[in-house]
Every structure is written in C-alpha cells, then in structure tokens.
C-alpha cells in the first residue's frame, strides 16, 4: 500500500520470466518453446484461438501441469520448475479457475477464512483463532466482492456470478504477487462483466495479473498489454492497438472476425 505513490517513477521490475517452455501431451505439443515475461503490477491479457495453449500456460504457472523443458522464474530467482501446487501458491501465485471453484458447504465467510494468507500447516490450523486483524481483512474483502450481505450463507447457494467473485475474493485473500485468471467473465451478464472489470482494476493495485479472455471488448477496455498465442507459440505482443494493426494476428486470429474487431 505504502509503495503505491512512488511506484510510477521507478523502472518496472520483472515479476515473471518464462524461457522456452515446452509442454507435450502425448504427440500433441500444447506449448512449443513459449517464452514470456511480464513486469510487476501489470495487467496482461492472453488471447488466441482455442487450442492456442493459453490455459495450459496458466496450468504450468500454477504447477498443475509440468513442463517437459524450459524454465520459469518467478520474482527474482524462484524457480517453479519442480515445485508442488501448494508451494507455488504459498510463494505468491494465485489461480482463479474458469469454472467457479469454491467450497459449497462452507459459508461465504468461511471460504475466505480458509483461503486467507496465513500459516497453512496442520498444527497452525489446529491452533488458529480469528484475530481482529483477520476479521477486518475478511470484512473488507466481503465489501470489495459485494457479498457482505451473504457472509453467513453456504457458498453453494450463490449465483454463478457471485461464485466467480467469491473465488476472486478467495484468491485475493491469499495476497498473491501474481494472479492468474481464466476467462473471469465467462457466463456473466453485462452488468456483472462491468463489476468484474472494476474488480480487476482494484486488484491491479496490489498484484500483477495474467488474464485469459475471449471477449475482445473486455480485453480492449482493460488490457495494458496483450499477448497473442497461436498453436503453442507467441504470435505477437503489445498494446491492443499494436495487436490490431499486426497482419499476422489478423490472419490467424482476428481474420475471420476482422470486421467486429474494428467495429
């Protein structure tokens, strides 16, 4: 929080460096020597046709899928290559899945309580008491995701959009340095989309974001930087305007929809 004021003046520090990431599922190459880098507190969108490897890339970053070759360095020198999911999560990479993934038999508040950044070993959990500070953090988060009035109901009873926000809230409670979001607005109404968009802006205050999204209007509205993927490789990278001017991109991705991309 206190760093925010002078943030603008400092040169952007790198938070993630991926080199030649190779992921194969049998004969199929999902990521073909994909290299990627991003700066701290950046909001970076991944776009590309189906099967381009966007979700696979997020899976690799959070430890769900192991790469066959290549290296990924998080922050200064934390290599995630051989780390387990929970270790990567503790280090500060949060993942929001495409389908809302919450704990339906815990209340909304308990969902946040479990996700919250804290010592997550068995014995710490046995002794854990809700401190005043933690309570305040949860209250604030409930306000941010707009579920303060639903704190005591079981999360399974929320609507689709509310579940999505709850999961975003849970990932925020982890206080990640890097947040991976997979199609956060899929299945949302226009009003919910807008709310999610402003939530992303709020998130950007505290962490870097990689967002996979298909909705071009949404990308145009919120992206700082866009990476276009195609068949497991990086096709192009830049601002949304630069991407739209790129001939290669128009050919493989925007080509068929060129008309609405310019609309």
């Amino acid at each position, binding site marked *: 929080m206190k760093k925010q004021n002078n943030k603008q003046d400092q040169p952007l520090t790198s938070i993630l460096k991926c080199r030649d990431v190779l992921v194969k599922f049998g004969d199929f190459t999902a990521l073909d020597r994909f290299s990627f880098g991003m700066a701290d507190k950046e909001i970076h969108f991944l776009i590309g046709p189906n099967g381009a490897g966007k979700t696979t890339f997020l899976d690799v970053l*959070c430890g*769900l899928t192991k790469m066959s070759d290549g290296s990924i360095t998080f922050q200064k020198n934390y290599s995630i290559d051989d780390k*387990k*999911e*929970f270790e990567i*999560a*503790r280090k500060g990479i*949060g*993942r929001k*899945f495409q389908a809302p*993934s*919450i*704990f*339906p*038999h*815990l209340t909304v508040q*308990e969902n946040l*309580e*479990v*996700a919250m*950044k804290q010592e*997550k*070993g*068995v014995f710490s*959990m*046995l002794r*854990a008491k809700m401190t005043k500070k933690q309570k305040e953090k949860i209250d604030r988060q409930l306000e941010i995701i707009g579920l303060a009035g639903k704190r*005591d109901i079981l999360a399974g009873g929320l609507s689709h959009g509310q579940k999505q926000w709850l*999961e975003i809230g*849970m*990932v925020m409670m*982890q206080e990640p340095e890097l947040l991976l979001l997979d199609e956060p607005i899929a299945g949302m109404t226009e009003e919910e989309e807008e709310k999610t968009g402003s939530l992303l802006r709020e998130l950007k205050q505290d962490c870097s974001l990689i967002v996979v999204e298909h909705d071009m209007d949404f990308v145009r509205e919120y992206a700082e930087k866009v990476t276009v993927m195609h068949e497991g490789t990086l096709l192009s990278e830049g601002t949304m305007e630069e991407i739209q001017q790129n001939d290669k991109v128009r050919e493989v991705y925007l080509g068929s929809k060129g008309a609405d991309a310019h609309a």
Partner: protein
Amino acid sequence: MGLSKWIGTKQGIFIVLLVLLAVLPLILNDFHTNLLGRYLAFAILVIGLDLVWGYTGILSLGHGIFFGLGAYIMAIYVTTESSGGALPDFMMWSGMTELPFLWELLSNPVAAILLGILLPMAIASLLGFFTFRNRIKGVYFTILTQALVLVTVTLIVSQQRYTGGSDGLSGLSTMFGFSLSSPQTQLFLYFLTLVVLAAVFYFCFKLVNSRFGKVLIAIRDGENRLRFSGYNTAYYKMVVFTLSAGIAGLAGMLYVLQIRIITPTMIDIIPSIEMALWVAIGGRGTLLGPIFGAILANVGTTFFSENYPELWTYFIGLVFIVVIVFLPGGLMSIGNKLKRKRRGSDHEEAEQQAGSAADKHS
C-alpha cells in the same frame, strides 16, 4: 441462548444422550447393559470414521482392521494376564515352548494400551503416506482399504500359533486382577466406555469446529482449489486418517474387554463395511448422527436376530435402501427437515428469533 434452544444444538442432544445412557443400566439387566456397552465402543469408532468420510470425503472400508488391531492387542494382554504366565492353550497345541517376543512385550499393560492406539495409527499413516501423496483417491483408495483388511485377516488366520488363527482369542478372564465375567467389572467397563465416548466426541467436536475442521470440509468440497490456496492436502488427509485409526484402535480395546473374545470374522470385510453403513444411516458429517446410527443399527440387529433371525438381513438391507433413497443425509437430516417445517408454520416466532441468528456461528 435459552435452555430449550441449547437442548436442540448438537452439544445439547449429546448431553441428553449421555444422561440417558448413564441411567439405562438401572433399567436394563446385566446382559443388555453389556451389549449396550459394546455398541458404545462402536459409537466411538464411528466418530473417527465420520471425521474421515463425512468431513474429509475419504471413504474407508478398512476401519475393521484398525478396530481389530486394538482389540487383538488388548486381548493378547488380557490372555497373558489370565493365564498367569503359562502358555495359552492354542500355542501349546501348535508346539510352542515359550511366549513369542510380541506377546512378551504385550504382557506389559502400558505397552499394550499404547500400542493398541499407536499401531493402528502407524499403519494408517503408512497407507495414507503412500496413497494420498500419490493422489490416489475416491474409489481407488477405498479398494486399497479393503485390500488392507484382506491382507491383515489372511495374516491373522495363517499365523495361528501367534494369533489363535480363525478361532481367535477367547481366554479373556481377568484384567488387573478383576474378573471380566463379573457384572461389577462389566458395569465399570460400560461407564468407562461411556466416558471415553464423551471425551472422543468432545475432542472431535472441537476439531471440526476449528479452522482445521473447515479445511477438512474444503478438502471434501474441492481439494484442487485448496491446493492452489497453498494447502498440502495430502498431509491433512494423512493426519485425519491416522487420527481416526487411533480412535478405532481405542474403540477396539474397549470392545474386546466387554465381549471377551476376538476372531478374524469380527474384523473382516463385512464388519468394516457395516461400520460405514452406520455412519451413512446416522448422517455423514454430523459426528452425532453416526453415534445414533451405530447404536440403533446394533440394537436393531440384536432385537431382530433374537426374535426374527431369518428376517434380519433383509431388514438391514431395506433400512439401508430407504436411507439412501429417502434420507441421503441420514437420521440427522430428519431433525433439520422437521425444523424447517416448524419454521414454516411458526413464522412469527422465527421472525422474533431472527435477531439471534448470529448465534448459529458460535
């Protein structure tokens, strides 16, 4: 919270149940008190099983073995005390000349009581270590627990000179100098079992209401999500599985002292499955439900097998089908259903109480 409301909470119902169980020996004859005492031992076991299955979502059909290990270890100690240092009959018949090392060790009561709990825990943590870490779960894990039962029972049957084989151990006559066949000793054991039941319930109740308990439910609801929240879920599963094996061992020790015989068929596949049925009948993930499930199912077994032995198996099958189809939440969900109905009719009263809705979370 007023008394009438408190009685309706889990703690309240449990206290009422405890008082009832403490008074029952005044009404029941010695034989029935002894039977009830054995069911209370089962009730202890199902609390642990509910932690694993009801809360964490791991179905174990192998708890008969953890229960059985506790029972066998206690039986070995009592056998050595009862025979006063002489070799038990079955050992002499198989040509043994002195007590094997394990029996020698278990003739020490402290070692026996500790091992009766620790050995099941050690086996459970080994099984848990190799399975949970390798992400073996669901039905595959359940099959492994059944395999554990088969292996252990086969081992016990085949090692007749150490274990009594398929005849089991039946020379349990004295413990700490008290005759196990005397009604006074059995009454004492009944109350001891009741006290242990209360302690185990209290402990597990605290556990499931702690943040640890919420993590267990989260494992059941979405283990993947939880991993990406920074939890080493394999370790949590191992801990809770081990804990519940220890509770099963403790229950087995109390059980064998009251029935005074242990054979491989008592801890085999079918009893192991029945234990899970009691949890399901009572209501998974409620702690209290399985206690009712274990006691009522066994009282039912006794009543029907005494009066209509040929109908009993059909009846228990029918009960299970009825529960699965009409009451997936078990007996405990009856209470909730009634509560909901009552809330519907007494709408005004519900409104008045809405202010204290926050109590729910305390």
